[in-house]
Each structure stands twice: as C-alpha cells, then as structure tokens.
C-alpha cells in the first residue's frame, strides 16, 4: 500500500513538472524565434507590433493599483486581526473577503466598467483599470497579510505591551515587522495577478496599444496586448514573442522578490 501510494505521488508530481516544463518549452520554442528588435521599438504601428507601450502601461497600472491596495489591504488586515471582536459580523466579513478572492476577474471587470468607466465617467482609462485591479487584488493582500499577522506569536505582543508600549506601537514596531515576509509575498502574488490579468482590463482600461498620454487615456497591458494579438489572428507569432517576454519578466520579479524576502527574514 505504502509503495503504491509513493509511486502515485511520484507520478502526480512528475506530471505537474512535465506540464509546467512543457508550457515553458512551448513558449520558448514558439516565442524566441519571433523576438526581434522591432518588438522593442518605442512606437506601436500597424506594421510593427511593438510591446514597449504595453510594458509601460503594465508598469503604470501595477504601481497605481498597488499604491491603492497595499495600504488599504494591510490596514484592513490589521483591523481584522488586532482590533475586531470575534463576533458574527466579523465572521461574515472574513467569509466575504475569502469569497471575493475567489471571484473570476471578469466580474471585477464588469463592475469596473459599470462603476468606474460609466458611473464615475472615467472612460476606458489607465485609472479605471488600476482602480478595478486594486479592488481585485485587495482580498489577496488582506488574506495574506491576515495570515502572516496571525502567525506572529501572541507572546511578542504581550512582551511589548508588558513594557508599557501602546497597542499601535506594538503593531507597527513589533507585529508588522515580523509579518513583513508574508505581507511581501502577498504583494508579489498581487503583482503576478495584475501582470496576468486581461479580462478585467479589457472592459476598463481598453485596448489602445500606444503609450498612454495621461492617466485618463486608454492603454493595454502586456497580457491584454497578447490577447489582442492572438484574437486578431494576424500576428500570433508576435503574441508568442510577447508571451516569452512576459514570462521572463515574471520570472525576474519572482527571483528578485525572493531575494528581498530572504534579506528581510535574515535581518531578524
């Protein structure tokens, strides 16, 4: 029985690795030959599907979305863990947050379109897209922050309070620094989700392939760019090239953030 189980586990694991490797290999094989300097031109034209504007848009949208969602998310998590009474309403809020993090992104997209694009009259814009995505990643940041706050031992809180520190000081000087690696990985996950998001952005930030002039202009992120290229059907090769670049960027972000987390943890 043990042996069969062990074999099964090995099998499943190798299937996972195989499919992962398969995808990566596929993108590399299909994408690498399609990379050309033209793809990195500053301007997007109908002849040259440059991905630089999309890259810039991605970065702008990510930064704005995070600027909004990180403070709100962290403070909400602090409230939930450190202040809220454990009553039924709190339970309901917790369930709501967990549910929100599982909702398909297209629903956020529709909400963003109705609320930001139409109701607040922002139009298809970087701003509407960023707002929508900040709402989308909020549950993720809240839950990861909450989890890591919960792992901080109560004895540390008591130690700080017993020295006469206030609750606020205890949270910001002791608890939050301890939770930092966890919070950080939540932010990384959020960046990943924003980078990979297309559905929610098509309805809110639009698909204009140029570098946005201001926050009210429409713009497409790399994922949307890829989606557009492949649905148009004319430039699937360029889509593969973009996919390759996107993959490299995400690998890079993961690598860098892992280094940062390691550094934070080591300092303790």
């Amino acid at each position, binding site marked *: 029985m043990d042996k069969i189980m062990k074999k099964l586990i090995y099998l499943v694991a190798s299937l996972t690795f195989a499919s992962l490797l398969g995808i990566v290999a596929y993108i590399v094989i299909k994408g690498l030959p399609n990379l050309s300097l033209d793809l990195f031109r500053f301007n997007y034209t109908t002849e040259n599907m440059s991905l630089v504007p999309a890259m810039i848009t991605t970065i702008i949208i990510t930064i704005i979305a995070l600027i909004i969602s990180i403070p709100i998310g962290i403070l909400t998590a602090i409230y939930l863990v450190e202040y809220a009474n454990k009553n039924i309403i709190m339970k309901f809020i917790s369930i709501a947050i967990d549910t929100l993090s599982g909702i398909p992104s297209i629903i956020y997209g529709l909400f963003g379109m109705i609320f930001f694009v139409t109701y607040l009259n922002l139009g298809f814009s970087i701003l509407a897209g960023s707002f929508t995505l900040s709402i989308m990643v909020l549950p993720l940041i809240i839950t990861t922050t909450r989890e890591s706050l919960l792992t901080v031992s109560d004895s*540390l809180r008591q130690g700080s*309070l017993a020295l*006469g520190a206030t609750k606020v000081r205890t949270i910001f000087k002791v608890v939050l620094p301890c939770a930092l690696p966890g919070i950080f990985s939540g932010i990384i996950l959020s960046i990943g989700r924003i980078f990979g998001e297309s559905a929610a952005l098509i309805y809110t930030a639009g698909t204009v392939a140029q570098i946005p002039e201001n926050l009210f202009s429409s713009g497409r992120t790399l994922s949307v760019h890829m989606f557009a290229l492949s649905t148009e059907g004319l430039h699937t090769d360029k889509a593969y090239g973009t996919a390759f670049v996107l993959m490299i960027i995400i690998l890079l972000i993961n690598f860098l953030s892992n280094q940062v987390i390691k550094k934070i943890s080591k300092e303790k």
Partner: protein
Amino acid sequence: MSKIKIKDFNLFYDNFQGLKNINMNIEENKITAFIGPSGCGKSSLLKSINRMNDLVDSCVTNGNIYFDDKDIMKTDVTQLRKEIGMVFQNPNPFPMSIYNNIAYGPRTHGIKSKEELDKIVESSLRKAALYDEVKDSIHKSALKLSGGQQQRLCIARALAIEPEVLLLDEPTSALDPISTLKIEELLQSLKDDYTIVIVTHNMQQALRISDNTGFFLNGELIEFNETDKLFTFPENEKTENYITGRFG
C-alpha cells in the same frame, strides 16, 4: 514593607471564577513565589498586578490591588507597566537585534539619545548577567541566543525601563537545569533592588529562591507564609498535601 497590597480581589472569566477573595501583601525587596496546580489562578493573579488581564475580553475583576498605595486600576496602564515589569514563560525576544530588544522599552518611554540608550543597554545586560556573553554580538539578532540567554535578555529588557517590581510567569519552565540555575542566581541578586514575584510549577525552585510563598488552589489563596515555614510546617492541610505530593 508591603509593595503591593491585594484586597478582596476576585476575578472572573465569563462565568468561571478564577480568583476568590484574595488578600495578600507582597513585601518590598523580597522574592514572593506563587505555587499551586495548573489552573489554580496563580498566573491570573500575577497578570492582574500589571493589568495584563485587561487584554482578555472575558476577564472581569473586582476588589483592589494597590501598588505603593495607589490603586492600579486608577493608574495609567503605560505608567503601571513601566513600574511593574514582566517576564513570560517562554522567552519572547523580539525578532530584532539584542540592542534593539533592550532599547525597545526605553524608546517606548521617550528616550531617544543614543548615548543614553547605549548606557541603558549595557547596564541592563550587566544586571541580567548577560553582558559578558553577548558584548561582541550586541547588534546581532536576539533569536541567535540560546533559550537561557534569551530569557535573561527578556529579564534585561524588562529591567531596562527601570521597574520597581518584576513579575515572572514560570520563567524557567522552558529552560534546561543550568540555565534555570543561572536565572535563579540572577533573581536572588536582583532582589536587593527589586520586588520580585514569581509563579512557578517547580516547588524546589520556590524553596530555593523565595522568601515568601503563596499556595493557590481552585482560585483561593490557601496559605501565604514565609517559605521556610510553609515548606516545613504548613498551617493548612491542603498545602501539606500539595507540597508533599499527596494531592488529589
């Protein structure tokens, strides 16, 4: 002289009465030990003295505890905890450097000057008999210390805010015998300057270091007496049965 006076003190957790009508005077510059089986209320009483029980929502108390004749419930809790330090069962150094651990308390109470903090850190480490062991790694993480060193660091951290009373909640139960002895030695050297109250499961420890011992059972203070007296001729049969191991 009594440093802390406890008068008709009761404590409840929801419907459970954790402490029943406790009256005791804790003497200055003495080590007072609280002993008794788990759940007897000794830790609850300890935590009431610096109002750590305020943090437990379900905890309600009545009666009074006086610290230097001031009602602790009418004292600002920050100030109270500055004057009554606490060390916990498991060493709980903050995940920061040794220096920052000790400077945390003084900084909390508004000391910012580096020279002053340097002085406090060194003297606190010396008082806790830890200075020689850590003087070269004072800016390294406190989590790299051994369990016994961590606990002495926690004592140093508590001493850094210059309290008058030191409360210790089973401070050696997580430590090996050598570290335990070091802490016991330390406590005895500290009693000239501090009033020490220690909760312990280890009766031999109470015997070794304390001047007075209180025995608690089911939320009641059964007997409070000089340690020598309590352990050679206890007045109450329940005390006798507990300390001689003929309990329950």
